[in-house]
């Protein structure tokens, strides 16, 4: 592509301050996805029986007036002199500094090798756990679960969009290129599918996934359900573009040199819609993330003990939880931030690649 066009696109993109910030945040989020096991101080299934629904651990910097660096106090169990029940009390005599590359529970990094090094932690002998976002009803670390849950939430959107855009591009260009009854058939089919309300359709499709499936299969099932709905918007846009592209002389030229229809579609039509595909993809990722969250929130998606942001939120749906343990809603903030970042980046990409705004938000 001409360098001028690239330059103009770059300029238009970086004019959006928010998009730039969004890009950085997304970069950090995906780093978190890649190193999730390492960043999380605890395994996502690890329960701490004595620390159910505890609030976020307080991190201290000064011990009796002297600077110590970040540390947490230990906890000791004492008998309540009135009720004689066990209760926990901060034990200022025990100090556990938060260290980088601390030893913790063992896990398999990327399923390749076993290690017990975590990005940060208080070591295995601490009497108190380090719960940055508090604990849930089983005494699991909400922070660790949020970090590990990002793997599902952030990649389901990406993978789902990839499949949806792939399907949409192929089906849309077939529809636009051949025209006639193929076009009519595909377009009416899309119209019928699109006239179903979206969430019930998701739910109906998610219901098909057998409950006894292992979590990885469920994950891919969800991705397929999401992309099954998502491809239609893409297909419509691409069809419209192919309708005009197929009249270009180079398509006729390809035909008269004897190239097959499929090759013309894949090599000459789809690549010429690439910039639009990029924009459309970025703008449809947030929808996918929300979709995954919605399905998991409603209990039809990712199942315990696996985690995803939507599933974590679903544990915070009762009034009791919201009132007493509000820290369990923190994963929701991640959803909001991720969705907003994708929207900012998508808008900026659209301004950069598609100045005439032909792509609508899907």
């Amino acid at each position, binding site marked *: 592509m001409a360098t001028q066009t690239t330059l103009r696109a770059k300029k238009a993109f970086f004019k959006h301050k928010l998009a730039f910030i969004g890009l950085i945040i997304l970069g950090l989020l995906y780093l978190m996805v890649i190193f999730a096991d390492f960043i999380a101080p605890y395994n996502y299934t690890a329960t701490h029986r004595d620390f159910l629904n505890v609030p976020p651990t307080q991190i201290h910097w000064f011990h009796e007036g002297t600077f110590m660096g970040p540390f947490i106090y230990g906890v000791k169990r004492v008998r309540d002199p009135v009720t004689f029940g066990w209760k926990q009390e901060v034990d200022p005599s025990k100090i556990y500094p938060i260290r980088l590359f601390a030893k913790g529970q063992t896990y398999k990094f990327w399923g390749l090798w076993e290690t017990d090094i975590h990005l940060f932690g208080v070591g295995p002998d601490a009497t108190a756990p380090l719960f940055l976002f508090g604990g849930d009803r089983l005494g699991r670390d909400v922070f660790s679960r949020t970090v590990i849950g990002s793997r599902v939430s952030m990649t389901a959107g990406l993978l789902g969009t990839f499949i949806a855009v792939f399907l949409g591009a192929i089906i849309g260009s077939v529809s636009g290129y051949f025209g006639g009854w193929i076009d009519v058939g595909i377009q009416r089919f899309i119209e019928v599918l699109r006239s179903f309300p979206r969430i019930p359709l998701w739910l109906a499709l998610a219901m098909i996934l057998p409950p006894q499936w292992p979590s990885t299969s469920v994950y891919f099932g969800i991705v397929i359900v999401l992309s099954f709905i998502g491809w239609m918007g893409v297909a419509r846009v691409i069809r419209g573009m192919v309708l005009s592209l197929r009249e270009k002389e180079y398509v*006729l030229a*390809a035909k008269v040199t*004897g*190239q097959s229809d499929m090759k013309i579609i894949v090599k000459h039509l789809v690549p010429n819609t690439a910039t639009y595909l990029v924009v459309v993809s970025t703008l449809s990722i947030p929808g996918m993330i929300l979709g995954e969250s919605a399905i998991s929130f409603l209990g039809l998606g990712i199942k315990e003990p696996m985690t995803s942001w939507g599933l974590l939120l679903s544990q915070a749906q009762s009034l009791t939880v919201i009132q007493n343990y509000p820290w369990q809603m923190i994963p929701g903030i991640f959803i909001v931030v991720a969705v907003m970042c994708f929207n900012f980046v998508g808008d900026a990409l659209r301004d950069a690649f598609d100045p005439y705004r032909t792509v609508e938000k899907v």
Partner: protein
Amino acid sequence: MIQVNHLKTWFKTDEGMVKAVDDISFTLNQTEVLALVGESGCGKSVTVLTLMGLVKSPPAKIEGEILYKGRNLRCLSKEEYRHMRGKEFGMIFQEPMSSFDPLYTIGDQMIEALRVHYPVSESEAKKQSIEMLQKVGIPEAKRRIEEYPHQMSGGMLQRVMIALTLSLEPKILIADEPSTALDVTIQAQVLSLMKKLQKETGTSILFITHDLGVVAEVADRIHVMYAGWIVEKATVFDLFKRPLHPYTQGLLKSRVQREYKGKTLPFISGYVPRAYEFPEGCRFHPRCPKVMEICPKTAPPAFEPLSGREVKCWLYEKGDIQ
């Protein structure tokens, strides 16, 4: 080489039946340049697309036969036809600028076309393409083959187009106004290049144009088309010396010539009728200066007033002329 008999290509539209090509017959001989001449909308391009099997039928209604190497092309399967395109019939377009996909280098596109038809390796195809580019006079072919279409000028690209088409060694080359989009000096270069390569390879050329000057330069025989008909067939020499059909006479008169200096050019009054409302009888009669009583009523058949000449006009009903 190729023989077209009573070819009809009709399109059904909301306005009515469009008889874009209506019962035309012609023969293209080996190593001959045949020119189809006519105004825009007379059916030249549809004729060519029908020959190439690129008019979908249905919806279009196609009748007649196209004989090539003893076979009727109309009976070929889609896949068989596809293999004919490029290898047997090459085609060059009017707009070289838009005939290349902007996303690929010209080399990619030449190699791609070659490999559709010939089982050659990528490097072999590239070598052949570079040779071909040198043949059509592209300087520094080795470097230029890596360039994108937008980096080349129109004349260059038309040469590349010719190189691409001829590298497939087609038996018949169809040139659809190949020089119209080029400026005059480049036009002459491209035309003489085509002429030269045609002599070398022995290809037959079907030349589509509205430019009589170009025709005089390259063609052996001329068929004049008007409103879906071929109204006159002649050799170049005969046609320019003695045009028979009133339409041809009008066309020749309206060329820019020295004797008209300072005066308004003569022109054919009226306009080409719309394709869905061709007049009854002779299709040229509303514009014809020599219109007779019979013209609006009955369509003229082809008469042969002189040997080797064919003309669709009632003026020549009596047969031979002086």
